[in-house]
């Protein structure tokens, strides 16, 4: 290892120590607090409590369904609104005077996490899932457009040149070349965004924007960890299930077409 590397490692370690001091990170406190986790786990994992808390599964599933609906609506509308912005933000389709301001606007939207947008929309439209949906839409627009315009910029320029040379309009070029060429990427990003939004929707309830998070935070506040655990377990199962389905769809319809391989339907 060169002396230069040692200096870099030394600086990084120094910065971690300074930051840890500033945020009062104390490993001893963590060790001392571990028994508290035991108390929570004891409440959750006692067989009697588990059986007793199982009656909350249907209401947890209903809350999860609301969360999924929030994520679904938010993703679909966000992607649909975001797509034209992606086209306008792509360097290979527009002049600097068009893509630069659009990118700045999208960067501003992306700056705030969805929970902050949710707080804003709770003020605007009141408590409930609608505020959550609006927050997801806005965050999706900011986030998915970045993924999309970066994909659009990497598509093969040859079909665009070939089709562009026959005198088609910009709209026709986008409709018949850009979207089909980028379609597998766009679908993959939509799946990723839905996956991401489901996770995000579970915490929007913390600020009163609907979904399963609202119940989880309420139970934790009232020290009802057993009930909170049932809701968290439902989140875990559903999120893992979505990820599994997502992987299957990607493998079957996206990865193969991106590599130019024949997609065979089983």
């Amino acid at each position, binding site marked *: 290892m060169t002396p230069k590397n040692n200096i870099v490692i030394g600086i990084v370690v120094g910065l971690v120590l300074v930051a840890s001091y500033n945020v009062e990170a104390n490993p001893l406190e963590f060790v001392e607090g571990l028994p508290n986790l035991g108390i929570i786990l004891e409440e959750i994992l006692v067989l009697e409590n588990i059986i007793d808390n199982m009656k909350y599964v249907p209401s947890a599933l209903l809350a999860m369904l609301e969360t999924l609906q929030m994520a679904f609506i938010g993703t679909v509308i966000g992607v649909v609104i975001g797509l034209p912005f992606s086209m306008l933000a792509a360097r290979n389709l527009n002049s600097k005077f068009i893509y630069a301001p659009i990118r700045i606007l999208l960067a501003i939207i992306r700056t705030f996490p969805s929970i902050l947008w949710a707080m804003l929309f709770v003020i605007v439209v009141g408590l409930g899932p609608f505020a959550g949906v609006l927050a997801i839409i806005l965050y999706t627009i900011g986030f998915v457009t970045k993924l999309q315009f970066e994909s659009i910029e990497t598509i*093969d320029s040859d079909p665009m*040149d*070939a089709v562009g*040379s026959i*005198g*088609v309009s910009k709209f*026709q070029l986008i*409709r018949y070349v850009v979207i089909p060429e980028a379609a597998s990427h766009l679908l993959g990003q939509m799946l990723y965004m839905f996956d991401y939004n489901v996770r995000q929707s579970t915490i929007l309830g913390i600020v009163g924007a609907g979904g399963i998070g609202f119940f989880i935070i309420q139970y934790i506040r009232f020290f009802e960890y057993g009930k909170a655990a049932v809701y968290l377990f439902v989140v875990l199962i559903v999120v893992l299930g979505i990820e599994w389905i997502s992987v299957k769809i990607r493998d079957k319809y996206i990865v193969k077409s991106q590599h130019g*391989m024949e997609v065979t339907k089983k």
Partner: protein
Amino acid sequence: MTRANKTRDSGIETIQMTQNPSFSLISTNKIIQMSDVSTSYDSKNYALEKINLSIDRGTNYAIVGQSGSGKSTLLKLMNGMMNPSGGTIKIDYIAPNMNNKKFKKMMHTIGYIPQSLGLVKNITVLDNILIGALPRLNKVQSFFKKFPEYEITEAKRIISLVGLTGKENRKAYMLSGGEKRRVAIARALMQKPTILLADEIVSELDHVTAKEIMDLIADAQKRMNLTAIMVHHDMQLALEYANRVAVIKEGQKILEIGVEGDTIVDFQTGDMTTEEIMEMHADDTKK
């Protein structure tokens, strides 16, 4: 000194013809005219320098040269994808510039097949071919992807012409190299072009498939009275199919010959035999 050197030394193409009147350059039927055309990619080195070309309507014209000689650039100048830094180009008496409204209106009459073919790989053969009809669609039809029935019928007729019947609904990325070339030709024919530009369309193909593709283009050229301008690096292939062959080397046109059956006419230095041309090309390639 080889014949090629003699030709280059003799200067710009002469505008009178020789023994064979069918190759006369003096004609009012010029579809492409290039006069002292130069262009460069980096403003230091010329990609093409002082090119003079004059192509008659309905000609099967070949441009031959080594990699990097400027052949593809020449095609891009003809369809307006590049602009010359010097000289003038006229395609049907209109300067090929994408900012020129008159040229934009005639762009659909120039079929262009790049070396990479430029197919949209995630859509079907039929959809790729229908792209050739896009300039004839109105905005509503474009938005809803609603091609008139007669355009679909025409696309299917062309699919049959290029030998792809039964593969209409295959995605482009599933096709073989030869099939992809047929789709690219079909898309260009769907434009109902008057000029067909093809850049090394049979390179990387085996001899049999290459011949099939060349026969297909030659057949379409005759049927539709197209002016076909094809870039090759194989002189033999160019001599076999073209009425005229221009040889480009290091951005300059060093030779232009007319071909009719077994007769080959050098526009600068008189009659030559196929063997002499091949020998010259071989000499040139060695340099």
